[in-house]
């Protein structure tokens, strides 16, 4: 059999048919790059060694457009997104599965770039891709590549994080400036393209989470404000916990370029997606200490205490504006921006 042509070759229907072409794609592309212990076994599933502790499992589909953007691509995003979901439960991510839906005609060169980036992101995050799947859909029925990943991790003893644990008086912390991923993607969109230096913040956050848990601070909730941005995440937590929130606008870090681009497009950075930031709710007495620990980590360098949890039967998230007035930070409604994660 002739080797795959990674320069000019394209995906065709036979790559998903279960026949020899599919085996070749796995052997020549996925295996050499992703070869985790399980993947190399070549079986229908991966048999994993016993682990000590409670398991966390999380799954996420990635349909970002464009597939390549400043600061990452769908491959690295598919790793970071799921690793972060596992990490937000206070777990150390261990394993990933990856399922690819490829569109007929998609260039093999691009696919290789994506898988390479995925492998790199997994290696850096210390997780193994142990099982996977590939399907091919006809031209026009997909958008190049969709990737679903599922992650498994293990939670250390004594940690119990949940969106319903925020209590009035708790502090709300944010690990860094908001809106970078969403604006990096938007800046590449056809019909919207604008020149900018904004780079996606896409990153695996479990190292930062580990440092935060090590600090012994009484953390109640961790969540990564992805689609829908910080505003959506805070509203989710407020509703789940049955509380209100009061934010300080001046404490929320927004990168100047992101702020300007949002202004230009009429967007509110509070609603723009992040892929490398987290929100923590913790006991007020531990907040300063936790903020210091976050700032000592490279992914939390501009961490800040951005507000507090208050009692409110309506579960409103309010914000004291930089002008000294108050407004609500509501759920997003109406038009969602096009696909960003």
């Amino acid at each position, binding site marked *: 059999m002739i080797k795959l042509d990674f320069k000019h070759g394209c995906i065709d229907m036979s790559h998903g048919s279960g026949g020899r072409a599919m085996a070749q794609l796995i052997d020549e592309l996925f295996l050499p790059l992703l070869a985790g212990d399980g993947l190399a076994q070549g079986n229908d599933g991966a048999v994993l060694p016993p682990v000590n502790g409670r398991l966390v499992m999380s799954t996420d589909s990635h349909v970002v457009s464009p597939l390549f953007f400043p600061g990452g691509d769908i491959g690295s995003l598919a790793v970071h997104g799921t690793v972060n979901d596992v990490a937000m439960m206070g777990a150390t991510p261990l394993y990933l599965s990856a399922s690819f839906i490829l569109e007929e005609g998609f260039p093999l060169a691009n696919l290789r770039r994506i898988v390479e980036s995925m492998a790199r992101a997994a290696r850096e995050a210390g997780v193994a891709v142990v099982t996977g799947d590939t399907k091919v859909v006809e031209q026009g029925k997909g958008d190049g590549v969709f990737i679903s990943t599922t992650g498994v991790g293990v939670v250390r003893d004594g940690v119990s994080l949940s969106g319903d644990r925020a209590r*009035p*008086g708790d502090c709300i912390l944010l690990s860094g*400036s908001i809106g970078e991923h969403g604006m990096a993607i938007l800046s590449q969109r056809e*019909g*919207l393209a604008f020149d900018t230096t904004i780079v996606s913040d896409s990153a695996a956050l479990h190292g930062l989470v580990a440092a935060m848990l090590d600090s012994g601070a009484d953390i109640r909730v961790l969540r990564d404000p992805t689609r829908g941005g910080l505003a959506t995440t805070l509203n989710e937590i407020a509703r789940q916990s049955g509380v*209100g929130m*009061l934010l300080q606008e*001046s404490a929320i*870090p*927004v*990168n*100047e370029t992101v*702020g300007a681009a949002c202004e230009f497009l009429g967007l*509110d950075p509070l609603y723009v997606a992040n892929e490398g930031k987290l929100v923590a709710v913790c006991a007020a007495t531990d907040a300063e200490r936790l903020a210091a620990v976050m700032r000592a980590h490279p992914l939390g360098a*501009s961490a800040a205490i951005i507000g*507090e*949890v*208050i*009692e*409110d039967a*309506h579960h*409103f998230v*309010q914000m004291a*504006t*930089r*002008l*000294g*007035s*108050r*407004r*609500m930070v*509501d759920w997003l*409604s*109406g*038009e969602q921006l096009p696909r960003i994660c």
Partner: protein
Amino acid sequence: MKFVDEFRDRELAGNIAFNIAREADPEREYRLMEFCGGHTHAISRYGLTDLLPPSVRMVHGPGCPVCVLPVGRIDMAIALALSQPVVLCTYGDCLRVPASSGMSLLKAKAQGADIRMVYSVTDALALAQKHPEKQVVFFAIGFETTTPPTAVALLQARALGLGNFSVISNHVLTPAAMHAILALDGGANLHGFVGPAHVSTVIGSAPYAPFAEQYRKPVVIAGFEPLDVMQAILMLVRQINAGRAEVENEFTRAVTPEGNRKAQVLVDRVFELREGFEWRGLGTIPRSALKLRAEYADLDAEQRYGLVYHPVPDSKACECGAILRGEKRPQDCRIFGTACTPDNPIGSCMVSSEGACAAHYTYGRFKDIAVRAA
């Protein structure tokens, strides 16, 4: 991070607020209409009413293009998109405006009509160029700011000889609507106007002179930044206190008396006044909207497809009309926040972020309920 600026903003806003509170006479009322939806949004988003004394009240005006579009115009677009093999392009907000029989452009799209959201008329024109086999219709809305781009697109279509591009014009005029508001009761209920920002960059400040002279209402043109709006309010309070009624310009960094002559010429080349146009809430206002000139009739979708306008009354429960006339506030509507929300709008004021109901729902509704802060 711009902490210095933020600190300065707060200090400046505090200063202006202090002056407004000191100078506004607590014994009298200052009912000030911000005409423009951009200002309505800024006032809500920055919580500016918190910074005003009780005697100064902001009244939302009809300057939100999606809000003033009557049901019948949307019905017309839906009928076209469902009955003809066209690609109907419009702004995102238009898609969600409730139309007759529970329809909207979004629902028509789900039923198979080819309706696309665009960010500008240029996108629609590009689509027509890319797909010569398709008839592309742009559903144009907006005040004087969006009219010049539509004019440019039409001129380009003509120059390119594009036979597959046409426009449904719903472009409306700010001064005509201000006249209509003041004609309601002679303007007895309003004491001044915060004049539009972007609209005034196009038309200039001169067209507002009649409001000051004829109706004795001060007008202060303001930018969209919260500090601009605060400064304009202070200037209005000062005019009212001094018994003056003048057109003043807070937004001198962008607005001149004569406006943007080049844009005006472009618009004039393509458009002419309609005899009358129905506005939601304000009824039919003479010479308040633009249609394509006879020379451009071939690019006028209303003529190309023989579209006929049928006026339709608003939903009974909806107070949009009274809100657009400045007579009621969003929270006065019985179904505000219950049956009518941004996710399920019953009236047009709940659709666009510039609509009074949507702005109040999104940013201010917590103030309607006593909330206990920790």
